[in-house]
């Protein structure tokens, strides 16, 4: 149908016109006025307490204590089970979060503004590796770190960003691609570039040498620091692509550790969900697939904009996590994703593939037709709360999401 082609082209054009800029860090309630007491935004499509996985529940108990809604973890758990918290997807409030992805009113969130359309998207600051809340950690160490982010690093980053007038992200990500990043599993290049961009401004807007040193150490010591920025960038890019009548382009992909959900431009705010799949990958010493938590996080917004698994051709090392692991197969992953997308992004190119642009604009029709589901590069969390990442690999979006989306879309446009 021609209307569908035209609508999809409009969707792609909006993606390519985006101009995402990291402009600020502010308390979540300032960015999202609706955020109030006992309201907890989480990763993935809507879900209620009984169906949540271990790390998600652990994180919720922790954040409730952090926000002083509960005196301790046990009380928090009772409150959660008793329905006293309002659980909402990040996506419904212009936000995204990695893994458990909890966003609550006092946490600092990074703000990415899409200057081409004026919309904004938000994501918390990456806590680092190991025992952190995004993996379900909720002990004193975890909460103390969150407190430090709130009191010190968040405001410091905010001052620095405002002084700079923001950091444009599209060009930064393009450089990352030339450095072996794909912005989901591999962010070390972009994280370094971000630190370079921020360092001077952090210094100029700081009056405490020790705090400055802590901030520089924290950002500099986290290879995955840029992940959360990439995610907010993804949300900022995709939100203006929502609600184009007749468009079959995917505007969001997300998981809550139980369900995988997608949203499609032409079907409004509907979520199409199916059980998450188990990743295929490699495990750190001491861990096996038996320890793995099901797939979780809003980070699949990165694949939605053509990075992550879609840009694997830029990041051959990541291909080592899958199958026979030959780095030369990395480009094949990108080529396969080109089978299910409507175009390429000419500003995000992969040098090793003759500078072809990353495949952009996932078309649910092509996914169902070819049977090729989006390939996602993901970290693997331990299923017990608070232990951390136990491996990394590749997971596929469930085909059932795209099939049900297709049927719903067809109904909407009057095709039986």
């Amino acid at each position, binding site marked *: *149908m*021609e209307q*569908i082609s035209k609508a999809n082209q409009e969707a792609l054009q909006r993606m390519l016109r985006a101009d995402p800029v990291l402009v600020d860090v502010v308390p979540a309630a300032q960015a999202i006025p609706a955020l109030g007491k006992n309201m907890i935004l989480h990763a993935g499509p809507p879900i209620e307490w009984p169906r949540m996985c271990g790390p998600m529940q652990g994180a919720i108990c922790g954040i409730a204590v952090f926000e002083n809604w509960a005196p301790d973890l046990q009380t928090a758990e009772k409150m959660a089970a008793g329905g006293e918290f309002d659980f909402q997807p990040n996506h419904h409030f212009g936000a995204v979060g990695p893994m458990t992805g909890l966003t609550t009113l006092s946490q600092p969130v990074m703000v990415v503004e899409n200057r081409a359309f004026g919309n904004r998207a938000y994501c918390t600051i990456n806590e680092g590796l190991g025992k952190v809340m995004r993996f379900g950690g909720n002990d004193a160490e975890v909460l103390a770190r969150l407190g430090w982010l709130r009191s010190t690093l968040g405001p410091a980053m905010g001052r620095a960003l405002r002084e700079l007038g923001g950091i444009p992200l599209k060009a930064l990500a393009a450089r990352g691609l030339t450095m072996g990043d794909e912005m989901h599993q591999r962010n070390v290049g972009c994280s370094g570039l971000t630190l370079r961009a921020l360092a001077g401004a952090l210094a100029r807007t700081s009056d405490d040498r020790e705090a400055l040193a802590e901030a520089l150490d924290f950002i500099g010591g986290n290879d995955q620091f840029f992940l959360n920025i990439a995610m907010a960038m993804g949300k900022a890019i995709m939100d203006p692509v929502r609600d184009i009548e007749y468009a079959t382009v995917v505007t969001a992909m997300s998981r809550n550790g139980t369900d995988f959900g997608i949203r499609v431009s032409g079907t409004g705010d509907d979520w199409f969900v199916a059980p998450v799949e188990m990743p295929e990958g490699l495990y750190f010493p001491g861990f096996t697939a038996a320890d793995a938590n099901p797939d979780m996080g809003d980070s699949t917004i990165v694949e939605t904009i053509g990075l992550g698994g879609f840009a694997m051709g830029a990041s051959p090392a990541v291909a080592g996590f899958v199958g026979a692991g030959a780095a030369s197969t990395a480009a094949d992953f990108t080529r396969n994703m080109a089978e299910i997308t409507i175009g390429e992004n000419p500003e995000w190119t992969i040098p090793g593939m003759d500078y072809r642009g990353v495949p952009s604009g996932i078309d649910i*029709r092509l996914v169902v*037709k070819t*049977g090729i589901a989006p390939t996602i590069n993901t970290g693997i969390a331990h299923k017990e709360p608070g232990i951390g990442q136990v491996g990394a690999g590749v997971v596929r979006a469930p085909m059932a999401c795209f099939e049900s989306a297709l*049927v719903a879309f067809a109904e909407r446009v009057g095709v039986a």
Partner: protein
Amino acid sequence: MSNDKDQDVHLPQPPLRVINLGLERFSDDLDAQRVEVVQVDWSPPAGGNPRLAALLEKLGV
């Protein structure tokens, strides 16, 4: 009967460049003759599900 709007038919301009969907031996044979050929790793649309395949056709793919 052809009508005025039909385009003139011309044989393909040499060299022949072939896309092969199906039996691999056809592309192997063309390869052996040094003809440029791409073999498609083809599978039925929608994994062979007729209902979805019909829907896809109506939706333009």
